[in-house]
């Protein structure tokens, strides 16, 4: 496949990610909308959100004006070199910004100047690895700023929360993070959580949880149970969409674990807003889309 074909396919991936919420997410929002009380602020907010999702999809326009941090995950087959892939993805980002699928969203941290292209040190964010398969797999997440600001990392034990180094302690951290995020970060939200690891890898792993479909089941029984319990507990807090009050505070919670040092026990929590933009596809060596992943 030529660089040009790859770039065109990646542009299509970015367009789809920015304008179309995955079906598994839409289904959960619809279900929540049905459950909220008639004439409540919560039902009203979810209705506006559903209308917005439909409009963005129909008109191929950004779901939210904050098109977020662009995070790219790719499994590269032997026929594709890493610098070549990066260049094609960056060119696709540049093009997507020009045509308005992405907002100009990358600011120099020292000068405050917006690059205007979404390119610059650290943007977009790449997580690349090699694969033995002949197929290229690319996933993209657009992670909004408002919800990124309410992510949190805890180091257990935590005396303020009375949280120890076990799953009961982890649950306390997660519920605390939900309380802190209320009214911020455009809820209802979705949580990605990593238990263990070091501070930086913990956050990376927590974000990777957003690649899972909302309706999948965690293969680890204890974590599967905890995920369900967190969603049930969070939705009993009464925070609701936008913090208006109501039964929908959390749409999902995905938890993973990594080994840790004996001295450390981190719980890293990433918060995703309802505008949970993720998509991905598999490409053949000839540049054909074999299938969409969500």
């Amino acid at each position, binding site marked *: 496949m030529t660089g040009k074909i790859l770039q065109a396919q990646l542009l299509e991936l970015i367009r789809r990610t920015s304008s179309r919420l995955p079906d598994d997410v839409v289904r959960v929002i619809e279900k929540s909308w049905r459950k909220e009380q008639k004439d409540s602020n919560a039902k*009203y907010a979810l209705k*506006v959100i559903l*209308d*917005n999702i439909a409009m963005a999809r129909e008109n191929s326009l950004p779901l939210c004006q904050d098109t977020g941090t662009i995070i790219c995950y790719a499994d590269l087959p032997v026929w594709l070199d890493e610098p070549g892939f990066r260049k094609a993805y960056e060119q696709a980002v540049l093009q997507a910004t020009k045509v308005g699928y992405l907002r100009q969203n990358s600011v120099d941290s020292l000068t405050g100047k917006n690059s205007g292209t979404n390119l610059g040190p650290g943007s977009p964010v790449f997580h690349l690895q090699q694969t033995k398969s002949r197929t290229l797999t690319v996933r993209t997440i657009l992670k909004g700023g408002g919800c990124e600001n309410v992510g949190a990392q805890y180091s257990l034990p935590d005396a303020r929360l009375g949280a120890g180094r076990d799953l009961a302690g982890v649950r306390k951290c997660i519920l605390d993070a939900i309380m802190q995020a209320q009214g911020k970060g455009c809820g209802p939200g979705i949580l990605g959580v990593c238990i263990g690891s070091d501070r930086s890898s913990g956050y990376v792993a927590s974000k990777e949880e957003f690649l899972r479909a909302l309706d999948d089941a965690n293969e680890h029984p204890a974590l599967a149970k905890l995920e369900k319990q967190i969603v049930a507990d969070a939705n*009993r*807090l009464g925070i609701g969409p936008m913090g*208006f*009050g109501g039964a929908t505070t959390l749409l999902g919670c995905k938890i993973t674990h990594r080994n840790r040092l004996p001295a450390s026990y981190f719980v890293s929590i990433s918060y995703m807003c*309802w505008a949970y933009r993720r998509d991905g596809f598999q490409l053949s060596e000839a540049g054909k889309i074999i299938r969409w992943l969500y």
Partner: protein
Amino acid sequence: MLLEAPFTEAKIRALKVGEMVEITGLIYTGRDAVHKYLYDGGKPPIDLTDSIIYHCGPVVVREKDRWVVKAAGPTTSAREEPYQGPLMERFKIRGVIGKGGMGPKTLAACAKVGAVYLHAIGGAAQVLAERVTAVEGVHLFEEFGSPEAIWEFRVERFPVVVTMDSHGRSLHDEVLRASQAALARLG
């Protein structure tokens, strides 16, 4: 319920926390740069008496001879907390639209002036842009750039929820207290 211009003190005082309101009339965008400019004594380019300010950095593009709004969701209001109350009092601003709510200084100013905080649906850029039927002007565009300028938006049935009213009530405080109690019950 419909809230139509002119936004008089009587109409605003009648609004209560939790009410779903649709705004029809002229509103002005303003975010960080505008708030700081006015707070520091800058002259408002428009008459702000009985106005509604929208915390929004919209995406607006020029199509032939007119401005078209492509996205117009709210931005986080908390950043304007130091400025909002004093500006409400100085200019008799009757309403602020944003997301995330504001603090005690603004709540006190709402009661004193007769003003409200109106919460838009965060992230709903497309629905909200559609409710902006015309752009009637833009000010401080050269000085602050497009997202920070004051845009005059003609809106029709622009959907918001009253989350802070002029009677001292804040939905944000109430939901926080209720959720703290619920968390204590969950253990």
